[in-house]
């Protein structure tokens, strides 16, 4: 404990220099935090993806969508517990580049059990949606973006035509939904019945089917069974569990890990170089002071530890500030990468990295300072 004031005064001997080193460490670790957060965000998304929810889409996109009656066939397949479906409407609000996706569902109980961890509806919102055919539930982000409130009537343009040939769809905002990971500020939920009755083409069809299997371990077999049932019909299907789909997505962005590792590597090398030079410089300037300490009775080990402690304090403080910064900008970065998160492991790795950098950059100068021959140093030789 008696060393603390000494370490403290050592750190602030040149406040400008220390401030700059702190800042540099903070910036480097902020970048580390953001990149690592992206990686763990993607990994977590895969780990969290439900293995028991199957996604059933047409095997051919751009071909005819699946008929609504497929639901009944699906229910008869062994291993399938619950089934549900979704369709959608891509529209624009006011400007042609302000896209809003309306997920069209049957607001019954089956959809609610599908992915409660992704989308949740308060019961009264759901009740309101059931009562109003043209009703929509919006996310709070979407409401903020365009200034929509419950009770508002919203006209939306879409390439999907209504029976009268018009592409304008009108919705009534009746409530809110909580969306944890999906579209954030461009998602709303509408009644499938409104969509299907009003549209000109593809009546009685749905875009996707969902099935929950009774045992996630049988997901692969049930998927294959579903595709077999629909094979050679005019509506072949492609079935995969959510887990499998997110693994496919992972493979698509497979280069991500390599890129992140390279960047983090470059950042840490540059940082290590910088801190090491600064430590060297500091020790060189303070040779006489260390000689005085040793004259006063400080051991070699004491001097060594004092210097390493200084580096440790500066680096870990900088790293913590940087990681906090990264955490602070996550809500903004989430627009680009869904599910960004910083679990404790990232903070732990970050702090461990900071400790490594501190020790690596301090150990040589500290060793040199500890071995200073007192008489020579005081004489200025």
């Amino acid at each position, binding site marked *: 404990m008696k060393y603390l004031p000494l370490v403290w005064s050592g750190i602030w001997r040149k406040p*400008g*220099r220390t401030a*700059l*080193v702190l*800042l*540099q460490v903070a*910036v*480097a670790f*902020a*970048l580390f935090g953001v*990149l690592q957060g992206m990686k763990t965000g993607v990994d977590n998304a895969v780990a969290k993806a439900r293995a028991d929810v199957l996604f059933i889409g047409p*095997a*051919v*996109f*751009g*071909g*005819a969508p699946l008929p609504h009656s497929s639901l009944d066939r699906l229910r008869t397949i062994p291993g399938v517990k619950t089934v549900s479906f979704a369709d959608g409407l891509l529209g624009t609000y006011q400007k*042609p580049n302000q896209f809003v996706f309306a997920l069209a569902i049957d607001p019954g109980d089956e959809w609610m059990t599908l992915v409660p961890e992704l989308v949740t509806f308060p019961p009264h919102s759901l009740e309101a949606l059931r009562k109003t055919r043209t009703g929509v539930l919006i996310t709070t982000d979407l409401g903020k973006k365009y200034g929509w409130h419950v009770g508002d009537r919203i006209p939306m343009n879409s*390439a999907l035509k209504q029976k009268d040939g018009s*592409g304008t769809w009108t919705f009534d905002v009746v409530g809110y939904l909580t969306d944890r990971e999906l579209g954030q500020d461009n998602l709303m939920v509408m009644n499938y019945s409104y969509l299907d009755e009003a549209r000109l083409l593809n009546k009685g069809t749905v875009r996707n089917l969902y099935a929950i299997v009774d045992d996630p371990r049988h997901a692969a077999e049930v998927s294959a069974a579903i595709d077999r049932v629909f094979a*050679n*019909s*005019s509506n*072949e299907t*492609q079935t*995969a569990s959510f887990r499998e789909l997110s*693994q*496919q997505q992972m*493979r*698509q*962005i*497979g*280069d*991500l890990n390599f*890129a992140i590792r*390279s*960047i983090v590597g*470059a*950042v840490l*090398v*540059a*940082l290590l*170089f*910088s801190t*090491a*030079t*600064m430590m*060297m*410089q500091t020790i060189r*300037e303070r040779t006489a002071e260390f000689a005085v300490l040793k004259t006063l009775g400080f051991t070699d080990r004491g001097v060594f530890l004092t210097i390493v402690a200084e580096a440790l304090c500066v680096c870990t403080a900088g790293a913590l500030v940087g990681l906090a910064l990264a955490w602070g900008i996550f809500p903004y970065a989430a627009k*680009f990468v869904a599910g960004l998160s910083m679990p404790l492991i990232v903070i732990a790795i970050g702090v461990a990295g900071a400790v490594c950098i501190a020790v690596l950059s301090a150990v040589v100068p500290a060793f040199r300072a500890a071995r200073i021959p007192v008489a020579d140093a005081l004489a200025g030789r």
Partner: protein
Amino acid sequence: MHPTKQFTALLRMSLAGIPARLGLICTIIVGVTCAVGVLVAMLAMGVGARREAMGNVRADRATLLSADAANPQQSSIAKDTASLIRELPGIRRNAHGDPIVIFQATVFVQARNKTDGGLTGFPVTGATAGLADYRPELHLTSGRLFNPGLRELIASNKCTRQFTDFEVGQKRHMRGGDWLIVGNFDLGRTEGVCTVFGDSETILSAFGRPTYNVANLMLQSPAAFTELSNAIKADPTLKLQARREAQMAEQNNAQLNGILNFVSYFVGSIMAIAATIGAANSLYAIVDGRRRELATLRAIGFDGVPIVASVLSESIVLALPGAVVGALLAWAAFNGLQASPLGASFRLAVTPSLALLGLGWALVIGLIGGLLPALRAARIPVTAALRAT
């Protein structure tokens, strides 16, 4: 002494001192090298993606979409407007005197990856007669073109490398029937994504589709585009819009390029900030180490301005080699590397203009990093610095 003479003398002194301050100087160079290297390597993705997207674009090709469609998938062109479209002005004619227009419909089917067995979507495009006239860059490497009315497909060589069952003679099962691969081809300067063509009418009927997506046509000259689009605007019953091929390619590529460039500049800026701070700190240390020297110079009549200029120049002179090394490293390690982020596929391209951009960033890093240390150098209190031991 004249200020410029003072400046050259000062610069020579600081450069002569480099060997004595190797550690501090390396910090500046390594910092800039890492920042510029990462920036250039990441921007090379955006350049590569754009090059891939624009590689086969010709100024004398255009695409017609339905008037309200934002992209080809949303577009639909009824079969009965096909004859009207063929009569539009500005369209080039082939050796037989027929207008070079092909109507296309695209569906997405899934194929199995050769490497990991995973499923990835690929487009199957049904095209009406005249594909060879419209796409002269389509070069068959084996087999022949598909025949109208038959379940035959031709696949680009990218497909055969990436997925299973795309070689000539192999069969693919789609929509309750077997489709025979009869040809493999290369597409001009880029290989792009896996591309598969078949006969339009066969594909439309097999996939239950009533309409084409788009009409692709060859113009008499790039300037004939105006004539064509005026004719389309003059006839509102057509409900069409005309776009140049370049515009379509740009639009296709815009989202990917936007993401890649945003990430590149985001990461690059943060690294540049770190490099700037590191450079500033090193230059402060260098200036502090030269206090007596600089104070002596002030005492014998050197001005503040040349001192500021010399420290700034030193900072830039040290930053520039870092940029050169960074750009070279990026080129050596990443140029031509196959990347496939976000489902796209292209080769990274480190171009001279990217290297120049890197030099520009280094210049800015050097200037900003050197500014405060330079001002301190010019403001060293002469008497105090000379008296200090």
